[in-house]
């Protein structure tokens, strides 16, 4: 006994595909990672596209699926590498020997208003 024709199934799959296409890219909206060296912001990295970036402080970071990780570092213990990939805004990657901190900001830093 046939419940549905093949066309019905295709339409259902197409409907779900459309929903997934619309919902997921928005889920990881444009977020950025900020790299601080000695407390100064030295670089902003877009997390929406996958990449591998060499930082002047002697670290290589990898961006994948909206997450950022340190994959190599010239520091002795490489604790930063073992901190893995982060995607949450309140948990940064810290490398003490390189005096470097990498943290994710939800969107590029923007001032809402100026008092003057």
């Amino acid at each position, binding site marked *: 006994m*046939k419940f*549905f*024709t093949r066309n019905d199934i295709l339409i259902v799959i197409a409907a779900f595909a459309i929903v997934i296409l619309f919902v997921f890219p928005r889920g990881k909206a444009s977020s950025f990672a900020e790299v601080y060296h000695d407390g100064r912001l030295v670089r902003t990295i877009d997390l929406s596209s996958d990449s591998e970036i060499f930082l002047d402080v002697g670290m290589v970071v990898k961006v994948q699926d909206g997450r950022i990780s340190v994959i190599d570092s010239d520091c002795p213990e490489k604790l930063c590498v073992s901190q893995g990939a982060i995607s949450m805004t309140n948990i940064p990657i810290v490398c003490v020997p390189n005096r470097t901190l990498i943290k994710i900001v939800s969107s590029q830093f923007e*001032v*809402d208003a*100026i*008092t003057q």
Partner: protein
Amino acid sequence: MPKGNSSSLLRNRVFLYGLLFVSAIVLLTIVFFRQKPLEYYDKTEYHLGTYVTIRVSSSTMSPVTLAEAAFTEIKRIDDKFGSRSNGVIAELNRTGELHDIDKETSFLIRSALEIARNTSGAFDPTLYSLTRLWGFDDESSKKRIPNDKEIEDALGSTGFSRITYDEELGYVSLVDGAMIDLGGIAKGYAVDMAIAKIKSLDPDATGFIDAGGDIGVIGPKYGNRPWIVGVRNPRGESVQDVIEYIYLYDGAVATSGDYERFFVEDSVRYHHILDPETGFPSRSGVISATVIGKSTMLADAYATAAFVIGMEPGVTFLPRFGALVLLVMEDMSIFRSPGFEVYQER
């Protein structure tokens, strides 16, 4: 193909497409209601001698309506208390005394006098004749350095002690030809009242009102995030040149700076914030004073006072009146009153 089979296929298809249709409606409804409060409506109009921007969002009513209502309120206050108005204050300044003043005027005079007392006259609502002498009363006025005689004469009719105010009788009188100028607090008051108007229409509305750098918060961004307010670098090349950041969930912030209105003569900068004691632009070493306060009116008035007081011990008293102070000095060093740093943590 048996007849029963094709009708059960039809039933199943009706069920399947019905389900798809219902889920589509549910999904659209969710998306619609989730997206809506995230949208902020911006509107800028010229009032109170400056550009006023309202950024507002509401989940229950049109932000356009809220902004319109707020602007109507701001316009009402501008007409009543603004420098060009011909209302109660103008009449009071003409006649020297007034009986049965209305509650709103009474509130503003009382507030102005209270702030003047709290700041030992660093904020003074009677400086209009001095302001006019320097040409800071209007953009089109000619700006010049008055001579000592003119300053001395003007000082003879300024000072908040020349105002007699009786709250119960609703009576105000001015002596020695003094004139009240509520311009220093009317702008902040207008922002506060506009926020109150929005809140009365939707208590959960969020956003902020920015009247030429005096900012009052309607509600936190998206309901739970702070508004990021940059303090303008007083010697920066652009308005966007920010020296400090403040994170505001509620309350207000205002800044007084020597870059707002000034003229330069013989390479000396003469700015619009006059010292009530000397009659000259305040030389306290401050080039910008930012105050975080409960209301925009208080923040605005105390920012002016903090600019005049400077690093004198008096500035440490301001937090007790609900005014947290950040001063930028001539050498670009920064002074914060205790508690200000709380608003600088994200």
